[in-house]
């Protein structure tokens, strides 16, 4: 096959590319320039958008003997990822920019361009597996080693995108083995540190970065009954589950710490409460997608008394959270998920990825949540 390898300059994508070459594919490397004014050097744990990273990628491609190009996606990235990130925070939600990048850039803008230019698929260094269902439809699965599994951030991929995606690292049990393989292959990035911060926030300080971009207004910190407990300098600087830096003078009734339960951008209020108030009994969203066959075609649904499709699944709400057994129901254009045990610290804007066993069924953006204590009350 004719393959386009997305090379960030890191060790994972370099080894994934090498494996695609070994598998006999006709591989071309491409580095995505996501900023018109890239930083010159890597700093700290950032690791994909600097000139140094693009040179690392170029060197890896050179060693593998494949053509290499840098393609400028900075305009699309700014609009689809950076501006979206700011807008979501401004609206009081907590977005995942890496997922947005996968959804709109790597497996959309880049894949479209690759297909346009005659490529069959895009290969990346993500840890996940693509298999084929009995009817030929692709399925997305967790990586063989769950510790490195990145299927959560790929949950946004659609069936058609999966058809054109390759993840050669999916069945490698550990990152150490990938580094050793890189070393063996003579790749200069074998010992390059992992990246885990948001790539477009240079100092790694999300709150300061947002404060420069979102007009912040001071407002009230209130409890669940609306009683004012303190003041804040901008509700958007708070995230659900946050405990530190609330600056509330009044202690809680039993002296236990309070947590941010909700950021209400409409009223510019930060709602705080007790840890148990963070427990979420139900999450729902209208923006969903299926990676491969949908639940009905997959044959896992039962029809409820009121005529909706319901199925047992596991739900995961963060990249590194544990999946929680749940019941999902497709109801009037909305996916509603009821976990068997309450979810902790869920913010609207987050993505819920739905699994059945190792298979990623699909995902939705959380638009609304129902608190467990609210249900009890």
């Amino acid at each position, binding site marked *: 096959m004719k393959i386009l390898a997305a090379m960030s300059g890191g060790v994972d994508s370099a080894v994934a590319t090498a494996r695609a070459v070994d598998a006999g594919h006709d591989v071309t490397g491409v*580095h995505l*320039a996501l900023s*018109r004014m*890239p930083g010159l050097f890597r700093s700290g744990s950032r690791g994909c958008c600097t*000139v140094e990273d*693009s*040179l690392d990628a*170029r060197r890896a491609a050179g060693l593998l003997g494949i*053509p290499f*190009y*840098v*393609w*400028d996606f*900075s305009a699309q990235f700014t609009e689809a990822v950076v501006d979206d990130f700011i807008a979501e925070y401004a609206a009081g939600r907590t977005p995942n920019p890496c997922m947005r990048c996968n959804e709109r850039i790597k497996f959309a803008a880049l894949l479209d*361009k690759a297909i*346009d*230019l005659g490529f069959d698929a895009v290969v990346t260094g993500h840890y996940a597996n693509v298999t084929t269902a009995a009817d030929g439809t692709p399925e997305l699965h967790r990586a063989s080693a769950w510790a490195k599994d990145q299927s959560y951030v790929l949950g946004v991929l659609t069936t058609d995108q999966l058809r054109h995606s390759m993840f050669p690292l999916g069945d490698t049990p550990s990152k150490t083995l990938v580094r050793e393989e890189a070393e063996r292959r003579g790749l200069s990035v074998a010992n390059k540190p992992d990246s885990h911060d948001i790539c477009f926030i240079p100092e790694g300080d999300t709150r300061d970065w947002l404060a420069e971009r979102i007009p912040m207004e001071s407002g009230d910190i209130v409890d669940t009954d609306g009683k004012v407990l303190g003041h804040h300098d901008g509700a958007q600087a708070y995230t659900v589950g946050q405990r530190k830096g609330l600056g509330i003078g009044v202690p809680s009734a039993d002296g236990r710490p309070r947590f941010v339960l909700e950021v209400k951008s409409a009223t510019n209020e930060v709602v705080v409460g007790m840890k148990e108030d963070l427990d979420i009994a139900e999450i729902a969203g209208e923006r969903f997608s299926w990676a491969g066959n949908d639940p009905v075609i997959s044959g896992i649904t039962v029809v409820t008394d009121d005529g909706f499709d319901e199925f047992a699944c596991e739900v995961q709400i963060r990249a590194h959270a544990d999946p929680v057994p749940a019941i999902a129901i497709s109801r009037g254009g909305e996916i509603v998920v009821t976990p068997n045990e309450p979810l902790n610290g869920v913010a609207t804007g987050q993505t819920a990825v739905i699994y059945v066993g190792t298979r990623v069924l699909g995902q939705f953006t959380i638009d609304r949540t129902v608190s467990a204590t609210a249900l009890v009350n």
Partner: protein
Amino acid sequence: MAYFDYAATSPMHDDVIDAWTHAVHLRGNASATHRDGQKSRLMWEEGRDKIAASIGALPFDVTVTGSGTEAINLAIKGLFWGRNGTPASREIGAPLPRPRILTTEAEHHAALDAIHWLVEAEGAIVDFVRVDDTGTIDLGDLAAKLGDDVALVTTLWTNNEVGTIQPVSEIVALAEKANVPVHLDAVATLGYTPIDFAQSGLAGLSVSAHKIGGPVGVGALAMSRSWPVVPLIHGGSQQRLRSGSLDAAGVFAAGVAAERATADIAANAARLSALRDRLVTGIRATIPTAVLRGHHSNRTPGNAHVTIPGLDSVSALFLLDEAGHAASAGSACQAGVQSPSHVLRAMGVADSEGPLRFTLGLENSEAEIDALLEVLPTIVARATH
């Protein structure tokens, strides 16, 4: 694989490679006093003589640098300091006597960024002289902007992107009247247009060896003795305006390349023009929306620069590369990222026009041009949105 990117760098002829490998076997430092040193020195001198001859300059007026970019930096910064005095030589807080630098917005980054640095670090003022839609400098505007407070004029003799040749003698005549030194970036001129530095009235002229089949890492600045220039690089004083050990092998090879490139400019230019015209005619016949950029007659022979509305240059260059044709978009890259061309913008060309630059050399053949023309329309159609 056919190569149409001579303006980026040009292949070394066997004669040049032989000269380099011959000279690189020498072991003496060209500034050493023993006979080994003397042998290296002779190689270096012979190389510089040939470089000087290729641009009509006296050898001693030619400073060999590590690149064309360094030559341009030395000319612009060196002249600026020479005209204004170094900061330490001026009274604290005293204004610069000649802060203005006249140039155009269609220059190479080597000049633009050196000037930008002077603006940021030394308080220079850059004054852009207008260029027209062919990239040709507006002489009336230049005349109006010249004055006592101008440190220097610098421009490209031949525009590296669109190939337009500037009216050099008119520029020099205007500057001479105002008693202002002129530096020309002749990196894209050497080997294509005859250069006679001594007769030109220029203060400085920069060239680069790898654009004419010489090695990368050898540039040269011819500098008139009439203008004081402050060096950039200090050390062992191996040259009047530059320190650093003399690169005997590189300069010897560059000399051979310069000699070859200028031995028969008229015949070479005629051959390149014919190839270029074949390409341009072919493009016009098959891609009606393509517009030839740059001046139609005052242009360097090997340059065919076209823009096509809606063309995604990056995709077109990828498809060309895949089909075995090396070309470029003409504009500068940072870490491989193509930026919209500041040269085209200065000429008033919209960013929606996708550029393709083919720069030809003597090794190109009519068959290669025809093979390119065979695939180009399909590639352009695929890469146009």
